[in-house]
C-alpha cells in the first residue's frame, strides 16, 4: 500500500537523438514528460522503470509553429500553453476546449501534449494500489492472467481516456514519430491499436516528436461527459469536425475517446456527405456511435451509460456545429 517511488536513474538529454539512444541502451527505460500520468502509475506499482528519460530539456520540443499549411505542435508543449495559445484559440478552438478540460490547473501546467497522446489506458481493476491488485490476483494488463472485466476473453479492455486525441483525429492530424531509424510521419489514427495492454503502435525507443494539424475550414468542437466538472477523465468524449456548403454536408469527421482502448474515428460517416443535418441524420449518427463504441466495465459509471452518453453528445455537437 506504500506510495513510495522505486529507485530509478534519471537521464536528461538535450536532443531527441540522445533521448532515443539513452532509451535503447537500457532495457526497462521509460520516457517521462510532465509525469502526471507516469509518476502516479509508478507510485502504484503498475509501471516500473529503471531509467527515466526526461524529455523536458529536449531542444525545440515545446514549440508551436503555425503557417498557412497548418500548425505543428511539439510534443513537449504543455497543456496549459496549448490552451492559452492565441493562434490555437482562433484557428482550432476545439483544441483549446479539450485542453482546458484536462485534469486540473496544476496538472495542466506540467502535463504535455505528447504525454496526453501516449497516456496509459485506464481501468478500475488496474489503477489501484499494489495491495489492492494483489488482493484481487492482479489482471491481464499487469502481472495476472485473467481480465476481471471480461473474464472469458483474452484481451484487455482498459479505456484510452486522453482528451486531445479525438480533437486531433477529427482535425485530420498526423504525428511525427522519431526512432532509431529516423523519423516517420503517420496519420494520428495509426498511432493507436485496439488493445488495452498495448494501445500504442510505437516500436521500442520510438517517441512522438510532434503533431501536425492541417489548415482546416471545418468547424470543430469537443465535448466530454464526466462525473464532475474538473479533475476527471472523460467517461466519453466526442470531437466533431463538420463542413457544410449550401445546406449540405461536405465533410464530417467524428472521433471518440473514453469508450474504447484507443481513440478512434467513427467509420461510415461518408454516408452523410451530401445530406443536411436533420433529425434523420442525427439519428443515423446516434446509431453509428452506439454500434461502434465498445465501453466495458472499466469505469465506475455503467458501461451502457457511456454508450448512450457518447451517442447523445455526438448528436448534440453535430447539431450545434450545423447551427441547426
Amino acid at each position, binding site marked *: 500500500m506504500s506510495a513510495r517511488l522505486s529507485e530509478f536513474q534519471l537521464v536528461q538529454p538535450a536532443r531527441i537523438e540522445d533521448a532515443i539512444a539513452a532509451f535503447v541502451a537500457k532495457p526497462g527505460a521509460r520516457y517521462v514528460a510532465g509525469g502526471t500520468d507516469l509518476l502516479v502509475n509508478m507510485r502504484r506499482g503498475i509501471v516500473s522503470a529503471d531509467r527515466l528519460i526526461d524529455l523536458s530539456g529536449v531542444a525545440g520540443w515545446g514549440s508551436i509553429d503555425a503557417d498557412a499549411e497548418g500548425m505543428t505542435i511539439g510534443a513537449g508543449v504543455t497543456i496549459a500553453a496549448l490552451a492559452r495559445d492565441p493562434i490555437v484559440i482562433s484557428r482550432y478552438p476545439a483544441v483549446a476546449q479539450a485542453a482546458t478540460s484536462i485534469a486540473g490547473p496544476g496538472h495542466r501546467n506540467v502535463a504535455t501534449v505528447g504525454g496526453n497522446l501516449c497516456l496509459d489506458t485506464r481501468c478500475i481493476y488496474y489503477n*489501484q494500489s499494489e495491495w489492492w491488485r494483489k488482493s484481487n490476483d492482479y489482471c491481464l494488463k499487469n502481472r495476472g492472467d485473467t481480465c476481471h472485466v471480461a473474464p472469458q476473453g483474452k484481451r484487455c479492455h482498459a479505456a484510452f481516456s486522453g482528451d486531445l486525441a479525438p480533437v486531433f483525429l477529427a482535425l485530420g492530424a498526423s504525428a511525427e514519430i522519431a526512432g532509431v531509424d529516423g523519423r516517420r510521419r503517420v496519420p494520428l489514427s495509426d498511432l493507436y491499436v485496439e488493445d488495452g495492454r498495448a494501445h500504442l503502435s510505437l516500436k521500442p525507443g520510438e517517441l512522438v516528436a510532434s503533431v501536425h494539424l492541417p489548415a482546416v475550414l471545418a468547424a470543430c468542437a469537443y465535448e466530454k461527459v464526466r462525473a*464532475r466538472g474538473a479533475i476527471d477523465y472523460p467517461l466519453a468524449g466526442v470531437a466533431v469536425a463538420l463542413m457544410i456548403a449550401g445546406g449540405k454536408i461536405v465533410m464530417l469527421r467524428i472521433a471518440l475517446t473514453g469508450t474504447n482502448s484507443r481513440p478512434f474515428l467513427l467509420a461510415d460517416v461518408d454516408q452523410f456527405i451530401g445530406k443536411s443535418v436533420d433529425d434523420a441524420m442525427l439519428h443515423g449518427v446516434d446509431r453509428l456511435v452506439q454500434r461502434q463504441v465498445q465501453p466495458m466495465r472499466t469505469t465506475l459509471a455503467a458501461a451502457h451509460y457511456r454508450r448512450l452518453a457518447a451517442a447523445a453528445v455526438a448528436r448534440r455537437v453535430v447539431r450545434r456545429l450545423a447551427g441547426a
Partner: protein
Amino acid sequence: MTAAFASSRPGVPLIDGIDKVLGRARYTADLDRAGALVGRILRSPIAHGEIVRIDTARARALDGVIAIVTGADCDKTYGVLPIAMNEYPMARDRVRYCGEPIAAVAAVDEETAQRALDLIDVEFRALPAYFISKDARAPDAVLLHANKPGNVEREVHHDFGDIEAGFAAADLVREHRVSCAEINHAQIEPHACLADFDPVTGRLTVQDVSQVVYYLHLMLARCLDMDESQIRVIKPFVGGGFGARVEVLNFEIVTALLARAAGGRVFMQLTREETFITHRARPQTDVVLKLGMKKDGRFTACACEVTQRGGAYAGYGVVTILYAGALLQGLYDIPAVKYDGYRVYANLPPCGAMRGHGGVNTRHAFETLVDRMARELGLDPFAVRRANLLHAPMQTMNGLMVQSYGLAECLDVVEQASGWKERIGRMPPGKGLGMSCSHYVSGSAKPIHFTGEPHAVIHLKLDHDGGVTALTGAADIGQGSSTMVAIAVAETLEVGIDRIRVISSDTAVTPKDNGAYSSRITFMVGNAAIDAAKNLKKILIAAAAKKLEAHPDEIDCAGGIFRVGRGGQAMLSFKEVVAAALVDEGAISVKGSFTCPVEFQGGKHRGGAVGSTMGFSYGAQVVETSVDEATGMVTIDKVWVALDCGHAINPLAVKGQIEGQVWMGMGQALCEETRYLDGLPAHASFLDYKMPTIVESPHIEAFIVESNDPNGPFGAKEASEGALAGFPPAMVNAIVNAIGVELDEIPATPDRVLEAIVQHQRKVKLAQKKARS
C-alpha cells in the same frame, strides 16, 4: 419568539487562521519525528475469513525491523460505545473486511517496513462475504458476529401516537423507497499518529489527528493495559474530521502498541487509500417511508423503515440507527410516528458518524415524499411546511425538548431571497427549483460514556502578564471551536479577544472534554467558558472594589475599565485590576462547567437518549438546478440557505459553516459515493471519490436566523450540521421540477439520472399506449 438577521455583525477570523494560511500550523505529519521508526500495517486481502496461521519469523529476521505486533499482542476490544465494543485493533482469529489490520511493523525506514509486511505469511480459511444488507440478512448467511442473529446489530422499533388513526385520518397516503449510497468524510488530512513510549518511565505520549482525545486516552489505557495516569494524548492541528476521527481508530492503538514493543517512537501515516479503508462514515441506507397528509398539507402520520449497511463492526452503529428514527421528530408537528430500524453487519469497512449523523438519509426520504404528495394535492412546498410548524417551547412525543424554533423565519427568508413565488412554475426548460427543511442537535444531552461528571469543564488561568489562558479539552479540528471559546471568555470579561489565548486538547494540561461530535462544543463548552469567565470576573471585581474602596456591587466593568458606578471618576485599567487581584491570590486559576439537566436527556423508552439535546438548529434552503437530459448531468446553479443557530457568536464562522454544510450535502447529493468491487474499495483516491470541485460549486447565499435559545451560550445553538440534510432533498425536488423525473437514488450521478429519464420515458410511452388502446 423574536428572530433577527445577524449579518450586521461581521465576526472575527479564526484565531488560528493566520498560522494555517502562512503554513506555520503543524499537523501530525509535520511534527518533529527525529528518531522515529516507521510504522506500517498489514491488511487483509480478503473480505471474510478465519485466520489459520500468522508467521512473522521471516519478517523479524529482516535487518532494520525493530518490532512486529499482531492480533496476539492485544486481546482487548475497543469501540466508542461501551455496550458495543466488538473490534480488536488487529484481527485475532477472523477478518471481516478487506483492509482490516492483521499485523504491523516498526522499522528503520519505510522501504524496510514494506518489505517486512511482504514477508509476513498469513493463511486464511475463506468464508462467504456479504456486501449488501439483503445478502447479509439472508436466513442461511454466515454470522459476522456469533451473538448477532441475522447479522443485525440492532433493531429499533419505536411507536409514538396512534399510527393507524393517523393514516385513517389522512386525505392522501403515499409510500416510497429511497436508497442513499455510502459516502465518506474525505477530510483533506490523511490519518497519522506519532507515539512515544519511554521504556524507562513506562509512559506513553501520543500525538494524533483525533477529534476525541479523551476517548483515545481511555482506549489506549484499555488496549495497552496501562494506568491512565501514565498516558498523555496531544492533538496538534487537525486537517478536518467531519466525524472521521470521532471514535478511536485501529491505527492509533496499533501505533501505540508498536511504540511500546519497540521501546521508542513510532510514526504512522496512512495513505489516502488506507484512510478511506479506515472509513466510519455515512452508511448505505434503504428507507421505506409512508406519510399521511390532509388536503391542506397537515401531516397525520409517518411510518418509516430504515436499513443501514453498517459494515463489519459496531462502531457508532447503534447510535446511528437510533438517530435515524429520533430525528423524524423535532422538526415538524407529526401526530403519530412509527419507526423500524435495522443496523446490518456486512463485510465492508465499519461505518460511523458523519456530519449530520443519522438524520440525513431519512430526512432525504421525508422531504422528497412531502414534495411528491404536495404536487399530487396541488400544494406549494412552502405552504406544506408552514402547515406543520412546531410551537416552542414544547416536547416531542419521543421526549425531545424544543426551546427555540426559528424555522418559520428560515422559510420566509429563503422563499423571498430565491424569488420562489415569482419563479416557481415559470422556470425555463431543464431548469428547476426545489426546497427542503432540516434540523440537528446541539450536542447529545446524554454523553456516550456516562460518568455523572459535568458535560463540559473549562479552566482559565490569569497571571502577571494580564493574559487569560483558556484551557479546554474541546478539539478544534478546523471548525473554529477555540475561537468560540476565546470570544465567549472575552465577551464575558468585556476585554479584547487578543487578551485570550486558548490551549486545546492535551490531556496533561487541559480538562477532560468529550470531544468534537454531535455539534456539542458551542452549546456545552461555550456555556462552560461563560461560567468560568464569570467566576474570573467576580475575582477581578472583588479586587477592583477593594482597591477603589467600594462594594463589589457598585463596580461597573466595561471595555476592560473598572469604575465605581457607571461614569464614575475613579477607575482602574484591566492590568491594574489584575495586579491588585494577584496581590491577594497569586496566579489565578478558575474553572467553569456546564451540565445538561436530566429533563433534557431524552425520552424514557429504550434508546431515548439518542437525539436528546438542549436545542435544535433549524434550516431551510432552496436549490436551483439545470439538468442536461441528453447526458443526465446535473448542475447546481444557486443555493439560498437560512440557518437558525440561536445566536451567531461569530457570524463569520457561522457563514463558513453554513456554506460547508451545503457543500457537503451537495457532494452526497450530486456525485460522492464509495464503491466496492468484491469488497475492495474502488473509490479510495480523490480522483475516484468524486468530491465536487470549485467548478461545480454554486454561489451559496447564506442567511443567519437568530431565535435566541433560552439555554444556549448568549442564546446560541449549533451551526455546523443543521442545514446539511436539507440539500439532497432540495436538489432532488429541483430535478423533478426541472424535468418531471423522480430519482429514487442518490447521488444523482449522470448514469443514474439518465437511467431514471429512460425509465420515465418508457413509463410515459406505456401509459400513452394503454390510453390509446
